[in-house]
């Protein structure tokens, strides 16, 4: 029966296990002869646990079509192995793996580039290596050249390129493959500021057109600002899968816990590559923290809050809190940039709170430039661990006469001689 309904899931993994054979064994050698005999008799290979390294120990993962999913985890946790399995470069030791759609992997930029060939020639070869057909390449080569912004260098041998030019060309080819599923391994920071913005835009285009993206990255701000979901791989398993925000918070907490353990005992999971991080205590229940933020609202003066705030207008951050019993509370409000950088942080000892109520932080003048910012509010009772932060987006509109991150109060003075 012909299937007319598109498969909803781009990638489905069921209990996928991957073990690597140790290639350097002591006192025991695979010889050419023994291997030949094994081959010719078509014997199955023996997998002895002592000679294998487990990379993934049972991964269950479903990545829905059209979603951008980040894979986070520390070095050696199995992220890249997972990507290579999805891409089909490695084959799973056991388990089921299903990939629906044309897949393109940007695991390394410029795979198969030949230094003696010109940029144009390398586009043709690299494009075919990445799975484009000759006709597709013919259609897209001009777009690729234009995107790479190499000018006359496109007809020079690649070995004469600066590393930035090389990466730009490679990135340009890779992103023009036009796959259903894009697999990216830590390559988003290519080129200078201008080119980075351009590649971000290209990625956004991918997302908007309903393509599935799976990326491995250590830039947690990218994960947060950019992905629909995040997977935390730890010790060869999926440790958490869900909202980027939750995953990042938990991941950071685990690393902090491991670091704390390291300072206490001198060793921790952090010093062992690939070892799982220690567990974290759940600290976000109101019973433990004593006080809780029930809502965070943004206002600009009287009336309904605007969709977009004016750079020079006022801002009120309204913090609705709930404290079951009287408790001394400290409040923190952070404003973060789109890249996760802290713009400013304001703390305040609110004194003893009890029941429910609202705290207000007033800014007479917002002073931020056009863009999307994030307000992160948290409350902490004295002597207790902090509660989970509440995050709210803050959109600031354009200002006709000024641009940039900040919008200070400006006065122009003219004094003619």
């Amino acid at each position, binding site marked *: 029966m012909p299937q007319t309904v598109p498969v909803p899931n781009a990638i489905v993994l069921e209990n996928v296990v991957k073990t690597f054979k140790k290639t350097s064994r002591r006192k025991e050698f695979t010889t050419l002869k023994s291997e030949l005999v094994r081959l010719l008799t*078509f014997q199955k290979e023996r997998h002895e646990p002592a000679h294998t390294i487990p990379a993934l120990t049972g991964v269950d993962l479903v990545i829905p079509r059209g979603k951008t999913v980040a894979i986070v985890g520390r070095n050696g946790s199995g992220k890249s192995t997972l990507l290579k399995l999805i891409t089909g*470069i*490695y*084959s799973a030791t056991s388990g089921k793996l299903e990939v629906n759609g044309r897949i393109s992997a940007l695991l*390394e930029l410029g*795979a198969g580039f030949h230094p003696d*060939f010109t940029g144009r020639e390398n586009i043709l070869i690299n494009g075919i290596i990445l799975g484009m057909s000759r006709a597709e390449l013919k259609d897209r080569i001009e777009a690729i050249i234009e995107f790479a912004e190499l000018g006359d260098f496109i007809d020079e041998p690649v070995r004469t390129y600066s590393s930035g030019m090389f990466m730009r060309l490679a990135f340009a080819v890779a992103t023009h493959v036009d796959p259903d599923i894009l697999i990216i391994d830590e390559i988003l920071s290519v080129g200078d500021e201008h080119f980075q913005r351009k590649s971000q835009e290209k990625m956004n285009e991918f997302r908007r057109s309903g393509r599935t993206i799976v990326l491995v990255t250590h830039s947690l701000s990218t994960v947060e600002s950019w992905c629909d979901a995040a997977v935390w791989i730890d010790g060869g398993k999926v440790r958490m899968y869900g909202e980027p925000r939750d995953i990042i918070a938990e991941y950071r907490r685990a690393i902090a816990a491991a670091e704390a353990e390291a300072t206490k005992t001198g060793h921790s999971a952090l010093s062992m590559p690939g070892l799982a991080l220690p567990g974290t205590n759940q600290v976000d229940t109101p019973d433990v923290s004593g006080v809780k933020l029930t809502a965070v609202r943004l206002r600009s003066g009287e009336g309904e809050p605007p969709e977009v705030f004016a750079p020079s207008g006022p801002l009120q951050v309204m913090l609705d809190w709930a404290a079951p019993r009287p408790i001394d509370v400290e409040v923190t409000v952070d404003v973060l940039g789109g890249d996760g950088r802290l713009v400013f942080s304001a703390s305040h000892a609110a004194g003893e709170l009890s029941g429910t109520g609202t705290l207000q932080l007033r800014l007479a003048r917002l002073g931020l430039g056009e863009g999307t910012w994030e307000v992160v509010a948290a409350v902490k009772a004295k002597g207790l661990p902090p509660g989970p932060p509440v995050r709210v987006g803050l959109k600031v509109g354009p200002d006709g006469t000024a641009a940039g991150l900040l919008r200070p109060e400006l006065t122009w003075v003219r004094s003619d001689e």
Partner: protein
Amino acid sequence: MIRNLRELYQYRALLWALTLRELKARYRASVLGFLWTFLNPTLNMVVYVVVFGVINRTSIERYPFFLFCGLLPWIFFSTSVLGGTTSVSDRRDLLTKVRFPAQVLPATVVLTNLLNFLLSLPLLFLLGAAYGDWPTWHLVYLPLVLVLQVFFTLAVTYFLSALNVAFRDLQHVVANLVQMLFFLTPVLWTLDTIGDVERFGVTLTAAQARDVMTFGNPMAGIMNAWRDIFFLHRVPAWQPLAEVALLSLVLLWLASGVFERRREEFAELV
């Protein structure tokens, strides 16, 4: 084997692109460039002509032409096998980063050398013409012999390239084995020079010894066929070719089986 070849066909664009790249890269940045396609075998021939035609005078007529008829296909075979052995193990950059059927790599080497061989054929005809020897209708057998040699070469290359990933010792052994096979194959000499054998308690008549040399070595059968077509202008004997055909098919089936089985490990081992 069928799957192996079908995948190769599916990825023909990649195969072709890599082959062209190989051909272009080979002579890039050299002054004479593409002329080396002709110069290399010619210089090779000159060396052998000096050794066997001048110093150690051979009785074979038109020896340079005779030599060239065998040397060109031999170079096709030996460079394919030598280059093919390391074709997979040398391409970590591709194998660990991009997904594609790995047999494209050894096939690229064979195809590259095949094109080189075909491009150097005019030189052979030119040399023949210099001796007043023009190609005859026996050229119709050329495609047949060519296909057989391609299959045989491909099989050997698959086998060696797959094994060399795990056992790099192989690439050092292969060079010597190929050289040995070169002297066992009638490239510099003809089977007619073999006489009765009476050595190590084995007694063979000249005819028997020739059969052993022909049927024991597939390249001998192929080599004789080339010489029949280009030099002696006669229909190649079918028995050795039938043997090569059968052997090539069995070998290719085996080799693609081995290749298939090992393929999963390539990305991990290179």
